[in-house]
């Protein structure tokens, strides 16, 4: 329990660091981006939007840096992210909320799937040294891990979308379709999700498989596995209960660290497939210099990663009794 509390505390701290980063970055950049922005949107902004710009960049406010910072923290804490510039006049919070379900569906499901599949294949691969998986997988996966995510996406579009014309490759659903909880729309959504999901799966599964297999190999050399054989335990039980259960633990911790890369990959995949999720929106915000939106999305992504890591830590604590006494 103390372990969990400590981790939670750490995450609050990191979140604060991310917020602070958001605050200071624009102020540290050479050539005040604020001025350029103000010039661009001059005359088109009023009240709310202007205020958020001022909060972000600290222009035209006659407050000290410290009080600006305090103000900013307060805004963040109450969820006041200001008004979007690109989607003017919608408030940032609203805009963000529309993108979340798409990303949650695509990235969430795919990541969990990749983790489970990858870990499973890794367990079998590590167990059966010299078997098919063990010989083929490592070099194959080493190479695939070097392929840029977005390129895989582009190749998928090329082959399955353009050449074979099997699946749609742009957008979350057909533009003409009306959103609703009916089978037609849902089917449409799923159809549009297949290619991006596959691209994401293909690129992320490699890491899980490889590290799990390596961990299995190291674990299998441990004395307690030999002891399990000595006791005459059935093979399945040794593989799962003694080897895999121990081998998976460092993988869980790695899950946390790799999440950063998964997020990066998701952003690129969404971009390539025009999938209307959080990542795509982030890039749109960047392209259109919609800084309030961009900062909010950055915080959201950071928060999501932190939550995922915390969950992984909880799972680790459940499965590894050694952490509980720490």
């Amino acid at each position, binding site marked *: 329990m103390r372990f969990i509390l400590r981790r939670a505390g750490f995450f609050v701290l990191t979140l604060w660091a991310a917020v602070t980063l958001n605050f200071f970055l624009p102020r540290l950049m050479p050539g005040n981006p604020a001025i350029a922005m103000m010039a661009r949107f001059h005359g088109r902004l009023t009240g709310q939007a202007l205020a958020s710009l001022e909060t972000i960049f600290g222009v035209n406010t006659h407050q000290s840096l410290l009080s600006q910072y305090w103000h900013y923290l307060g805004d963040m804490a109450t969820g006041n992210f200001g008004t979007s510039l690109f989607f003017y006049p919608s408030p940032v919070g609203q805009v963000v909320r529309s993108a979340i379900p798409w990303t949650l569906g695509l990235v969430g499901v795919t990541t969990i799937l990749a983790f489970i599949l990858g870990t499973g294949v890794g367990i079998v691969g590590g167990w059966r*040294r010299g078997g098919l998986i063990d010989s083929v997988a490592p070099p194959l996966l080493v190479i695939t891990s070097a392929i840029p995510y977005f390129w895989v996406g582009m190749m998928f579009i090329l082959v399955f979308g353009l050449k074979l014309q099997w699946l749609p490759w742009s957008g979350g659903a057909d533009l003409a379709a009306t959103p609703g909880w009916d089978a037609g729309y849902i089917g449409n959504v799923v159809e549009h999700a297949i290619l991006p999901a596959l691209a994401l799966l293909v690129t992320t599964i490699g890491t899980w498989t490889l590290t799990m297999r390596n961990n299995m190999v190291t674990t*299998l*050399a*441990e*004395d*307690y596995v*030999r*002891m*399990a*054989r*000595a*006791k*005459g*335990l*059935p*093979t399945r*039980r040794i593989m799962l*209960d*003694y080897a895999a*259960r*121990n081998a998976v*633990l460092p993988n869980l911790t790695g899950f946390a660290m790799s999440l950063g890369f998964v997020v990066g990959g998701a952003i690129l995949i969404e971009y390539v497939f025009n999938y209307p999720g959080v990542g795509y929106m982030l890039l749109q915000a960047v392209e259109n210099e919609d800084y309030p939106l961009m900062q909010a999305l950055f915080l959201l992504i950071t928060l999501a990663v932190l939550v995922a890591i915390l969950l992984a830590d909880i799972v680790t604590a459940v*499965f*590894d*009794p*050694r952490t509980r*006494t720490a």
Partner: protein
Amino acid sequence: MLEVSRLSVEYGTRPGVPVRAVDDVSFRVGKGEFLGIVGESGCGKSTLLFAIAQLLSDPARVTAGTVAFRGANLVALTDRQLRAVRWEHLSVVMQSAMNALNPVKSVGAQFADAMRAHGTRSRATIGERSREVLQMVGIDPAHLASYPHQLSGGMRQRAMIAMALLFTPDLVIMDEPTSALDVVAQRALMVQIKELQAELGFAIVFVTHDMSLVSHFSDRLMVMYAGQVAELGPTRKVFDHPRHPYSRGLLEAFPSVTGPKVPLAGIPGAPPDLSLPPQGCRFLPRCSRAVDECGARVPDLTEKDGTLVRCLNTF
């Protein structure tokens, strides 16, 4: 009860250059007997142990010989057939309980694992027997719920021994179970093991590098060098009058607390590289009693006054 015949084990790490860690080893263990196997690091004693229990893993494998136990040759048995023998008649105690016990399962769960694998399903029986064996080694049965890292080193080791006795096997193989403990705990553990043996009647094959420790408790002593049996005989004979120059060297390396002060004599040199074994006696480069024939071929094990010795010029 256990008869090891001309057993050889090779490590195949490099193609074409096998390392024979265990070379043509033969010995017998009778019912209820305590056999100690001693030798320096790398002499093959642990490998021998694992080979007997069929616990070798890549890249080690048995290349010759048989292990006759309860009427069957263990080397030739399949995993399924071995399962009937494992733990019920032959169990193993390893060097470091911290490494030999699964860190993510409670002690009780690991006991239960073993019992369920051999047909005991009833939770009551499992619990009862678990508590019984723990009490035998002097551990509070409440520790069945503990995880290995929560027990002290000595307790862990005793828990391992308790686990080995779940089915009151005929033979328990122990690989340096005392090496990870301090001197006081070592002796206490040895005494406990001996008591249990007297009570339950199982045979013990005990591997260690500490000759003086095991000699107080063993019935017979086997000295290994470079993968071969150097000397094998009743403990008192081997310990009091070692015939092989290596055995004598080993003994003289241990100072006596009670005897007269003598300068410590080590054995100069190092064991041979087993990937390129010499043609003659393997101890030749370090031997003070070598004669010309020693380098020609490996000496056979010959009997001298009730002890088997592999030497042409014994003491």
